[in-house]
C-alpha cells in the first residue's frame, strides 16, 4: 500500500504528551512513525503533504449525530452526513437510532453498518434504541443489537419518562456492560415549552421549558446508574444544575457517569433569540441563560463534561420555515463544531489544543469504550488536520450536509479542518472532499 508523509505540522496529543512540530509517516493505514526534526527514513515514493502552519490531531469523533437514514433521507443520509462529518474534521460519528424504522433490532444495526462501509466517508458507530420503536414502553432486544455491533443504546429524541423502565434498561445493560445514553427530559415539566423558561420566554411570548425539566431527569438517571451499576452517559447537557449534579456524582466516585455538551450550547445562549423568531435557534434542549452557558464552559474545562458532541439534527426547509412553535427542533453541527470550538475556546485562550483533543477525540472514544487514536507508531491513522487561519462564511452552499438548518448561517468561522485521514486514507484534502472512486 501507499505511504503518506505529513510534513511540518504542529502535532498535538496529550495521551502521549506531544505538542511539537514533527513529521508523521502513515503506511498501510497506520502511523509508522512520528519524528521530531523530520522523517529521514520515509520511502522515496511516499506522497508528501506540506502541513506547515497546521495542527495535526488524533481524529475527532462526534458521538451524537442524526444521520436520518433509513427513513428520513430527505433530511440527511449516511453518505451526505458522513461527507459533512469529514468536511467538519471528524473521522467518526455515532449515529442515533431515531430513524424510520427505528434502529431497535440487530438487522437495522447491520443495515447502518453496511451502508456506512459502502458509502461512508468516515466511520459510523450506530446506536440502538433502548425501547421498541422509541415508544418508551418495552425494552428492545439489546443482545441482538450488541451482536450486530451497536456501540451504545439511546432513545435520544425523547426522554424515557417511566423511571421503572429506565431502571430495567440499565439493569439489563449491565449484562453486556452496554452504555446507556440518556436524553434527560421530563415531559410533564416541559409542559409545551419551546424555549428556555427565562428571559426569552417572556420576551418572545412563548411557553418556556424550565431547567428543572432536564436536571430532574439527570438526577433520576444518576441515581438509577448508582443503583444498577450501569454505564450512563448524559446527552446534550444544557443547564448549570445538570453540570453540578454530574460533577457531584463524579466526585462521589460510585457512579459510572459521563456527559457531553453541544457546541451551540457552549457558544450561544437564549439571547440569540429575538422577535425575528429564527427557527434555526429552536433546539432541544433549548438555548439557556448566560449563566448556564458559563457553567457548561466551566464543566467542559474541568472535565465534568467529557465530550463535545454536536447533536447534528438536519431538517428540510419545510420543517423549519414555519411558525416558531410548529418548527422542528435542532441545528446541524458537524461542519461548524470544530471552528466554533477553536474560535471561542482555543483562540480565546480558555483551552489549549491538548484539551480540545481530550474533549473531541479521546473523550468520546473513552465514553464509547473505543481504542484511543494516539499519535505514535502503531496507532490507526485516523487524523484531523486543522488550519487555524482558514476561514469560511457559513452559507447553505458551503454546508455539504443536506440539512441547511444551521444556527450559524451567515457567520464567518475561523479554524477549519483542512485535511482528514480515515484509516490512512485522505477523505478531505485542502478543504475539499476526496470523492470515492
Amino acid at each position, binding site marked *: 500500500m501507499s505511504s503518506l508523509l505529513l510534513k511540518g505540522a504542529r502535532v498535538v496529543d496529550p495521551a502521549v504528551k506531544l505538542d511539537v512540530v514533527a513529521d508523521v509517516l502513515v503506511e498501510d493505514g497506520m502511523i509508522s512513525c512520528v519524528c521530531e526534526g523530520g522523517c529521514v527514513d520515509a520511502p522515496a515514493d511516499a506522497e508528501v503533504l506540506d502541513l506547515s502552519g497546521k495542527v495535526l490531531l488524533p481524529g475527532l469523533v462526534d458521538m451524537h449525530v442524526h444521520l436520518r437514514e433509513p427513513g428520513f433521507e430527505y433530511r440527511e443520509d449516511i453518505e451526505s452526513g458522513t461527507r459533512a462529518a469529514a468536511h467538519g474534521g471528524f473521522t467518526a460519528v455515532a449515529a442515533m437510532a431515531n430513524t424510520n424504522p427505528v434502529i431497535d433490532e440487530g438487522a437495522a444495526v447491520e443495515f447502518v453498518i453496511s451502508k456506512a462501509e459502502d458509502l461512508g466517508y468516515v466511520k459510523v458507530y450506530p446506536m440502538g434504541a433502548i425501547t421498541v420503536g422509541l415508544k418508551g414502553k418495552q425494552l428492545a432486544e439489546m443482545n441482538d443489537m450488541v451482536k450486530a455491533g451497536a456501540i451504545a443504546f439511546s432513545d435520544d429524541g425523547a426522554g424515557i419518562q417511566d423511571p421503572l423502565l429506565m431502571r430495567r434498561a440499565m439493569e439489563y445493560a449491565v449484562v453486556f456492560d452496554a452504555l446507556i445514553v440518556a436524553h434527560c427530559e421530563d415531559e410533564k415539566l416541559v409542559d409545551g415549552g419551546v424555549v428556555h*423558561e*427565562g*428571559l426569552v*420566554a*417572556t*420576551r*418572545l*411570548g*412563548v*411557553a*418556556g421549558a424550565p431547567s428543572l425539566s432536564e436536571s430532574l431527569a439527570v438526577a433520576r438517571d444518576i441515581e438509577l446508574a448508582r443503583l444498577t451499576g450501569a454505564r450512563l452517559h448524559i446527552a446534550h447537557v444544557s443547564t448549570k444544575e445538570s453540570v453540578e449534579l454530574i460533577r457531584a456524582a463524579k466526585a462521589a466516585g460510585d457512579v459510572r457517569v459521563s456527559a457531553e455538551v453541544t457546541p451551540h450550547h457552549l457558544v450561544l445562549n437564549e439571547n440569540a433569540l429575538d*422577535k*425575528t*423568531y429564527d427557527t434555526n435557534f429552536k433546539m432541544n434542549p433549548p438555548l439557556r441563560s448566560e449563566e448556564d452557558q458559563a457553567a457548561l464552559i466551566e464543566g467542559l474545562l474541568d472535565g465534568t463534561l467529557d465530550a463535545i458532541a454536536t447533536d447534528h439534527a438536519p431538517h428540510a426547509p*419545510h420543517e423549519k*420555515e*414555519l*411558525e*416558531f*412553535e*410548529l418548527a422542528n427542533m435542532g441545528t446541524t453541527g458537524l461542519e461548524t463544531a470544530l471552528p466554533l470550538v477553536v474560535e471561542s475556546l482555543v483562540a480565546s485562550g480558555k483551552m489549549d489544543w491538548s484539551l480540545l483533543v481530550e474533549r473531541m477525540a479521546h473523550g468520546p472514544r473513552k465514553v464509547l469504550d473505543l481504542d484511543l487514536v494516539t499519535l505514535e507508531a502503531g496507532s490507526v491513522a485516523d487524523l484531523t488536520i486543522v488550519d487555524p487561519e482558514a476561514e469560511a462564511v457559513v452559507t447553505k452552499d458551503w454546508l455539504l450536509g443536506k440539512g441547511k438548518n444551521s444556527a450559524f448561517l451567515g457567520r464567518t468561522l475561523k479554524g477549519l479542518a483542512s485535511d482528514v485521514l480515515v484509516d490512512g486514507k485522505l477523505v478531505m484534502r485542502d478543504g475539499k472532499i476526496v470523492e470515492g472512486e
Partner: protein
Amino acid sequence: MSMVKSKHLLNIEDFTNDEILAVLENAKTFKEINDRPIKKLPTLRGRTIVNLFLEPSTRTRGSFELAQKRLSADSLNFSASASATTKGESLIDTAQTFDAMKVDMVIVRHKYAGTPYVLTQHMDAHIVNGGDGINEHPTQTLLDLFTIQEKMGRIEGLTVGIVGDIVHSRVAGSLAPALKRLGARVIFVAPPAYQPVVPEELGAEVSYDFDAVLPELDVVCLLRIQGERAEGLSVPSIREYAGLYGLNKWRADNLMKKNAIILHPGPMNRGVEITADVIADPRTYVLDQVNAGVATRMAVMYMMLGGEAGE
C-alpha cells in the same frame, strides 16, 4: 408618506412614544366621525386590506373590518374555517398567495407567536399583528391606552394593575411595556402560575395579593383566565380564584379608588374575574374600549397607509 417609521406593527415597540400619542390623537378625530350618521371617509379608497384570521376572533376582526369600511378600503376576509391552512397549505404559501394578489396590508391573527414576522419575510404588504399566540396584541394596547387617556386625562404617573392569567395573555405582553414607556407604573396581580417568567422584562412589578394592591390602582385591567388551563392545576378551582382575584362588588366598593377605572379586553367570564354588578359599575368602561377599538384601528391603518403612493 406613512406617518410612522416602522413599515409593520408587529409588536408595540415598533411604534415610538410620539407615534403612539399621535395614534391616540388621530383616533380622537375618528371617534367623532363614528358618532356621525354617515360614518365614512374616502381616506383609504383603492387600498386593499386582507384580514387573515387564522384563529377565531369576533371583536378584533369585527373592529378591523368596520374600521376598514369606514375608511373606504377594500377588504377581504380570510378566516380559519375557510382557510387553506386546514388543507395543509403552509403559512408561507398563504403569504405568497396574497402577495401575488398585490394587497396593501394584512391584519393577522394567529395561534402562534411570531407569525406576523414570518409574513413580513414573504410579502411586500404592511403587516399588522391582530394578536399572535401569547405574545402580543398591539392594537388592543393602543385602544386600552386611548381609553385610559380619555377617562383619566393622562397616562403618565398612573398605577395600573393587570390582573389575571398574564403569562398566557397577549394583551399584557403589549400593554405592560407600553404603559411603562409612557410613564405609568404597572403591577401584575396573579398567583405565581399566571405570572410571566421574568415580569421585569415587561416592565412590571409583581403581587400575589389583590386586596393589598387594589387601593393603589388608578386603572384595573382584568384579564380572563383560560378555563382549560385553570382548574385543578394552575389554581385549585375557579371558585377559589374568584375569591382571591375576582373583582366583586365588595372589593370595588371598599378597596378601589372612587376615581379609578375598570377595563377588560373581553371576552368576560362573569363571576370569575369580574362579577355582573361590577360590569354595571359606572367606573367600568368595557364598551368604551370596544368603541375606541374601531377609532384606534382606523388611526393605525390611516397612519400606516394613508397618503402612500397612488394618492
